[in-house]
């Protein structure tokens, strides 16, 4: 498994300092979401300022998501953006988490052609490198 981690060829995230708690979370196999203190609502994607109208809150609590949601939309990709994806067929999806936010990810653990809008999914963590773990989603059994 360590060889796979060292040889991860696909794009890694363009990290910004303000998102660190999220990636610390995934590394520990937790799906953490930032919560605006003014509205009490979680948001995604993580950024330095609350995206809710009327709020300029910039210090957030981070709460753990149940990791459960539904496939809001998806697309089976037969061609990837870089050479690292050559020959692969994979699913990019917009997951609607039960927490009320949308999160882009891959749906894994299922034949791409079987994925459907509305399908119930749950988070599964994929360790890409020593430092980076991605939150991906698999169908709820």
């Amino acid at each position, binding site marked *: 498994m360590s060889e796979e981690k060292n040889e991860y060829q696909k794009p890694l995230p*363009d990290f910004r300092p303000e998102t660190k708690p999220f990636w610390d979370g995934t590394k520990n196999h937790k799906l953490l979401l930032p919560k605006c203190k003014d509205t009490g609502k979680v948001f995604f994607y993580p950024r330095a300022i609350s995206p809710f109208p009327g709020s300029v809150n910039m210090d957030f609590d981070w709460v753990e998501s149940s990791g459960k949601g539904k496939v809001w939309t998806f697309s089976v990709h037969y061609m990837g*953006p*870089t050479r690292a994806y050559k020959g692969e067929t994979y699913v990019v999806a917009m997951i609607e988490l039960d927490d009320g936010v949308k999160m882009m990810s891959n749906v894994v653990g299922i034949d791409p052609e079987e994925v459907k809008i509305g399908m119930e999914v749950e988070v599964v963590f994929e360790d890409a490198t020593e430092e980076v773990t991605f939150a991906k989603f698999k169908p709820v059994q």
Partner: protein
Amino acid sequence: MGTHIPSIDDTKELLKKNQIGIIGVGETAQGKIPGKSSFHFLSEASKLAIEDAGIQKSDVDGIITAFSLVEETFMHCTTFADYIGINPKYFESVAIGGATAVWMTAAAAMAINSGQAEVVLCVRGDNTLSGISSTGMIALIREMCHGEFEYPFGLTTPGGYALMANRYLHETNGKREHLHSVAVTMREHAKLKENAMMKDDLTLDEIMGTRLLASPLTKFDCSIVSDGGAAFIVTTNAKAKELGLKRDPVYLHGMGQGFSHQYLTSCENLDQIYGAVEKSGKKAFETAGMTNDNVDITFLYDCFTITTLLELEGLGIVPRGQAGAYALEGRLHKDADTPINTHGGLLSQAHLGAMHHVIEAVLQLRGDAGARQVKNPNVALVHGNGGIVSAHSTIILGNEPVS
């Protein structure tokens, strides 16, 4: 004193007072044209527009450009002003993706209305096809989505639109043919446009038999990449007469913008997109004092087949959920009841954002569209969209002066 809050009414007054419109257009050859730099295309397009207008380069006192996907220019508009030898009183780079070209017209009008310039050259050009390396292309794809929370999942540019397309088909109980038929109509139109890049026959069967890039989209559902330049010149009717121009301007009657999101992660649902399109169109219509009933020909941002359908519905041209059926029935064809993009659009003619859409609107209104001409159009709507159906702009152009 100081109690006035500006509104569209002020714009209406100014457009009526100043009678601003497009007096010259220029399009270079489009397609795979190696050996010409981005700035060469900008120059050539500008030359053609200046000559079409019947003015001198020295008459131009405003420059509005976009951006380059090839050249790393920090200040694009002033770099081009330097290059072409124009000392502009007004200079602006409009960089809102595909919403740019449409908005250049509005920006030119606003500059003119505020006395910053009188004759504004709006130009975009690039050697995107021949000049961009594969690393450059990868960088471009990365910029179309969130580099931290979207790109690492392998989203491609067609992929982003494909996500929206699948959701649309799900909500409308639609099928792939609804999307692909937009491409079929665009190809039919492109065949009649001299500088169109794609002119080979294209049938629905062929598209259905083509491999998917990202479900449900094939390469035919995606805009082409091309080299070329395009420009148009905006001024007032009074200035046009002062310059001794024979032709009346094609007048700007209204303009608007609408914002939905930038990243798909921030797009809660399709209604959010429809809302942004609607807002953009509504502002343009209100300023123009018009509705969809006044529009004779429409130009929509067809970077992907799905965007065309979403815009048709968002603008209220077609009832919600029915754009796919319209496309499949051929109703978007120049001879049908809802003609769009008679130049072949981004799907078949060329990709310079909505530049060619603005230009073709002008050609149609002038009666200069040749074999593509629709019958006596008086009013054209042109809609641009930047990002992944994210940022929208609309203008309404007409042959009649603003009243």
